[in-house]
């Protein structure tokens, strides 16, 4: 075992010096390799992040959402409507929600103003998402003045700033007392924006939705699992499409790697001949070559992944986002929450390191079976 470790470390040692001696040649392949990892990793990191954001966003949304439609457009739901849905088997709670969008010209941003029913802020106070706090430059205890769409100016005291796991959720949210909300938007007190239904047994969701639709014709019933499914398949499909294209890239890269590896330069060939003549056997040379591949792979994988991370989470993926345009339309602006999924790493290595290693194997073997007596003759 000791001997094995010694041998491997000596072989790695030699490999490193060989890589350094042929740096120019290796840098080219390393650059292409890193680029490939970068493109694949950017795509995966970006779509993973979007998937997570959408899930986080939806985790706050109810199992079933009821919206009223009037002339095909979203309209207010009345208290009577909510009552009409009434007691339904399997439903633990129906709650009318009040929320609306508000454009603040002072910071040129849209806020989502929402009334909270349980544990609301005191009247005249609000809780704001950290995005709002950042945009308006205000902190806890400061006052935020908003001119209501109906005219009068309302001044709220910021009672607290909250942040959520997903910035999508928290960025633009302003929570206020229901009475304040009604006053601000000048909406009749028996109207609400939509109704949220909580269902006890997930398996019952579809039944509940059907019954709601029957009792409240002209309403739109949205299921959380339905949205999740749509988002997921949309994301997966687009990501897959991009990756499939990128896999073509990977394939051509493998061909390139094969070519580069089989076109061993004369000096490299001579080196291997010498090693064989002075006592290395085929397996030693092959192991050395595999180490070479592993080092190149590790280097390219690390570089590409790091660059992709910075690209996606610091610069918001300018290089892949346009290709995946559908997503940026869904969410106009937000920060992605950095995270790294082990399955993604595994998948990424399957799509990059695995083909590279396969492509360089046969050339490495061809080099390794050089006849040891080649060095004795024809060496000029």
């Amino acid at each position, binding site marked *: 075992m*000791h*001997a*094995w470790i*010694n*041998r491997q*470390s*000596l*072989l790695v*040692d*030699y490999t490193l*010096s060989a890589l350094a*001696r042929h740096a120019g040649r290796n840098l080219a392949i390393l650059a292409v390799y890193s680029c490939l990892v970068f493109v694949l990793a950017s795509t995966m990191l970006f779509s993973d992040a979007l998937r997570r954001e959408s899930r986080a966003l939806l985790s706050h949304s109810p199992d079933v959402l009821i919206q009223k439609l009037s002339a095909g457009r979203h309209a207010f739901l009345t208290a009577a409507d909510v009552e009409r849905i009434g007691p339904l088997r399997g439903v633990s709670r129906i709650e009318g929600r009040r929320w609306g969008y508000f454009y603040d010209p002072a910071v040129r941003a849209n806020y989502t103003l929402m009334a909270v029913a349980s544990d609301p802020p005191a009247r005249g106070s609000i809780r704001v998402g950290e995005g709002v706090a950042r945009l308006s430059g205000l902190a806890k205890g400061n006052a935020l003045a908003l001119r209501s769409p109906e005219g009068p100016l309302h001044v709220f005291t910021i009672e607290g700033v909250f942040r959520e796991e997903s910035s999508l959720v928290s960025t633009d949210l302003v929570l206020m007392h229901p009475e304040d909300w009604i006053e601000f938007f000048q909406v009749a007190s028996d109207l609400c924006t939509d109704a949220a239904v909580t269902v006890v047994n997930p398996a019952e969701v579809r039944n509940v939705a059907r019954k709601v639709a029957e009792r409240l014709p002209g309403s739109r019933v949205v299921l959380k699992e339905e949205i999740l499914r749509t988002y997921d398949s949309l994301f997966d499909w687009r990501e897959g499409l991009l990756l499939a294209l990128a896999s073509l890239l990977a394939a051509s890269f493998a061909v390139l790697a094969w070519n580069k590896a089989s076109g061993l330069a004369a*000096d490299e060939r001579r*080196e291997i001949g*010498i*090693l064989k*003549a*002075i*006592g*290395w*056997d*085929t*397996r*030693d040379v092959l192991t050395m070559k595999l180490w070479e591949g592993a080092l190149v792979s590790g280097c390219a994988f690390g570089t590409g992944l790091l660059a992709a991370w910075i690209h996606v989470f610091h610069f918001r993926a300018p290089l892949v986002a346009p290709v995946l345009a559908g997503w940026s339309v869904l969410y106009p602006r937000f920060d992605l929450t950095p995270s790294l999924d082990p399955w993604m790493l595994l998948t990424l290595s399957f799509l990059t390191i695995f083909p590279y290693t396969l492509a360089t194997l046969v050339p490495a073997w061809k080099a390794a079976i050089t*006849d*040891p*007596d080649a*060095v*004795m*003759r024809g*060496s*000029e």
Partner: protein
Amino acid sequence: MNSFIELEAIRKVFHEGEHNEFTALRDVSLSFSRGSLTVLSGPSGSGKTSLLTVLGCLSRPTEGRVKVEGELVSNLPEPLLAVVRRRTFGFVFQQFQLIPGLSALTNVVLPAYPTGKPHRVIVDRGLALLSHLSLGRLAHERVERLSGGEQQRVAIARALINDPPVILADEPTANLDSALSSAFLQTARELRDEGRTVILSSHDPRICDAPEIDRRIRLLDGRITP
């Protein structure tokens, strides 16, 4: 029974069965004992190098048998053959065949890498060998910056790193002037006196006719001539 290496009826054919088939060795039988200094001589193309490669297990004979310490090695599978080669033979090649870009020391220790000995042990032995050949201060110099004679001594140190009982040298003095040639001969005699079997090939009369040589073998057209 005190012969260390035995060759029995060796035939070596290149490109067997092709239009350019060439028989480089015919019916060569030889044996070498420990602690001897032998020179293979003969005109160019007579088969000296071919004989050394077969002898040193760098290539297999087309026919015939090679035995090392009584053990038949000519049909061993490659990994086993490599082990025999590593343990038994040290090679000094005609153009030295050092790897450029590496230091003298690294070149010297390379044959020991597959043995799995600790790095420290290998390096210490390499340094000892180099300073024994008065190259201690050049150990960390890149080999291509060394002179011809120094390069040859690096090659000798490399041949000795695994402490092999047999040293094979192909035309060791072809690139050296007469002072360096006699220095080499001196080293070869020391190795023989340590109990090693030293086999040189040469058509250099300074070597072939030197008094230190125990045995002279002449090759002509792949045959041993008296």
